[in-house]
């Protein structure tokens, strides 16, 4: 915080005045958000520290789950449903689809449950509440990083070296996070008042897993492409697959454009709703 060094006795000659009144909470909101950035870091660090405490396998859990899912989805979509693979080993298609999906799931779940999960803080201390869902993204990012580092050798093992497309990966990570945060802000603000949304989240994710091309590639499904593009995550999954597999799959550009627009709309409206309800959080949480 930008106050005089606390080692010296405080001088009250001309301290900055803070005025609290009904509807005034928003006056310095964005400045406060910046001032409290360290707290966001600490909350993220706490979540990461605590995540795998007392779990013998520790961070290995970030790998076990997607590994099992890769095997299952390969079996279901590749072997049973015999979906076209276009010459790319099917496990790789699935693995590269799971990476963004896991990132989204983690980020969305984290942000969506963050306010209720931190209710003890919200009812006892002031800080811009937006910090809570934002810092909840950190755990998902860490899990994603671990998975990514392990996925790259696997991809290389199958002989598919990623190309320059890999450089665009951060853009797709950002897009995933924007969508997850936008949706998460809605869910978390709504959960403060209506705990129903805690039950809705897993449901959304369950359905989302299948309407998002995690287990199959869209470039061989021209009839379904436009319908799938309504889901902003389709473009993200397609895009990350494209990055990781060196351009061996295609990106559907109209779908990507739609996804970016949806993502921005989600985030803006999410922040708007969050800010609108924020002042009553402490009273009803």
């Amino acid at each position: 915080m930008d106050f005089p060094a606390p080692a010296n006795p405080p001088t009250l000659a001309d301290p900055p005045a803070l005025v609290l009144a009904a509807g005034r909470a928003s006056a310095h909101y964005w400045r406060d958000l910046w001032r409290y950035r360290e707290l966001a870091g600490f909350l993220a660090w706490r979540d990461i520290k605590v995540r795998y405490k007392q779990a013998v396998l520790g961070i290995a859990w970030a790998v076990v789950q997607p590994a099992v899912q890769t095997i299952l989805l390969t079996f279901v979509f590749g072997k049973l449903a015999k979906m076209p693979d276009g010459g790319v080993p099917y496990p790789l298609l699935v693995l590269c689809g799971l990476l963004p999906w896991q990132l989204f799931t983690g980020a969305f779940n984290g942000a969506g449950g963050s306010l209720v999960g931190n209710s003890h803080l919200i009812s006892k201390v002031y800080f811009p509440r937006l910090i809570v869902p934002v810092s909840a993204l950190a755990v998902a990012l860490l899990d994603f990083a671990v998975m990514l580092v392990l996925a790259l050798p696997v991809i290389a093992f199958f002989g598919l070296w990623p190309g320059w497309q890999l450089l665009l990966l951060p853009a797709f990570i950002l897009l995933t996070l924007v969508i997850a945060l936008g949706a998460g802000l809605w869910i978390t603000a709504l959960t403060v008042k209506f705990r129903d949304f805690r039950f809705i989240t897993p449901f959304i994710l369950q359905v989302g897993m299948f309407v998002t091309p995690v287990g199959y590639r869209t470039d061989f499904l021209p009839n379904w492409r436009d319908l799938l593009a309504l889901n902003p995550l389709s473009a993200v999954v397609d895009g990350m697959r494209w990055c990781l597999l060196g351009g061996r799959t295609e990106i559907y550009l109209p779908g990507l454009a739609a996804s970016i627009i949806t993502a921005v709309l989600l985030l803006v409206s999410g922040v708007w709703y969050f800010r609108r309800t924020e002042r009553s959080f402490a009273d009803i949480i």
Partner: protein
Amino acid sequence: MPLPAIEVSGLSKRYVIEHESRHDSLRDTLHHSARKLWRRLRWGTGFEREEFWALRDVSFSIQPGEVVGIIGRNGAGKSTLLKILSRITEPTSGQITLRGRVASLLEVGTGFHPDLSGRENIYLNGAILGMQRAEISRKFDEIVAFAEVERFLDTPVKRYSSGMYVRLAFAVAAHLEPEILIVDEVLAVGDAQFQKKCLGKIEDVARNQGRTVLFVSHNMAAVQSLCQRAIFLRGGTLFCDAPVAVALQAYLADAQPDANDQFHGETYALRVDHIGFTQAGAFPAIALDLTLRAKLPGRLALEVIVKSSMGTPVAFADAGSLRFDQALVITPGDTRSRWLLDASQLANGSYFIRLQLFEVGVEHHLILDHPAAIEVTRATPDGVDRVLQADWNVGAVTLPLYPVKN
């Protein structure tokens, strides 16, 4: 005169309680809205909404460096006031101007995570309370020394004893250096020695560092020893804003139940007119005003039992049951009497009084528990540095200790 550190004007906070249903789930809301609409269409009224004013038109201002106590019964609006001052919730109307960095301690250990070690929790809790990383690092050793947990720094705090936990939590908070410190009832925890240390720390913050402190407590003795001024909230309004002694007196007077004018007992009945702590006489005392109504003449013994707030009897006084010659000789009719129970060895704190009436050597007549707590808040006598506090949990009475010379 400098500008006030805290300026509160016309502060009100309203909560709306909607009858008929609390809709915490979506279904409830939908259901409720549908019924509300139906009622509107049918009768032209919605459900009743009851407004509850937790605070109503409260105004005061506090100068930099002042230490002000906030007192009041449960539900008087103390916590709401603190929550608004700490920016946790917004006022409904009115305005507050705060000049200086505010730190509020509404509980100790906010945001402590049981799985993290002591070291990690110091950083986390510090950040939550608004300290910067560099600031925490600088004070780290001081915090650890104050909390006396050096050996367990890397143990998860869930394995701490509750005392250690509280010490660590308070230590972090105590090393905040805000211009305005808001403290809510945090001294009710920890052992006696640590409580003394906490009080001392708050005193130090207030007296020597010239900070503004707002201190909320039910512990009148602590308020009395820390604050120069107190604000007495009653039913959401400011009832009294005065020097601490005056405000405390108002609070204590208000704490007396208005009507305890019933006689208890049959042949011999007892009525409590007033029981309260007084410093008006030669010694601090609990004064008892009693009226005895007798149908028959007799010799009665009166016993007074003083219980701590936990219900443990800690003191006994009698007239007539141990010393027969002091028994009361009663004639039929009402007899009013006033008794003074010497409280000069009693620790400061709240006590309950039980009265027992016996007919000497004959029959057990009457036990009467006075419902209101008596607050003993005696001032420090000459030649003594401090007064024993009941909530130190070391005992309720001070006993004289004499060195024996060989």
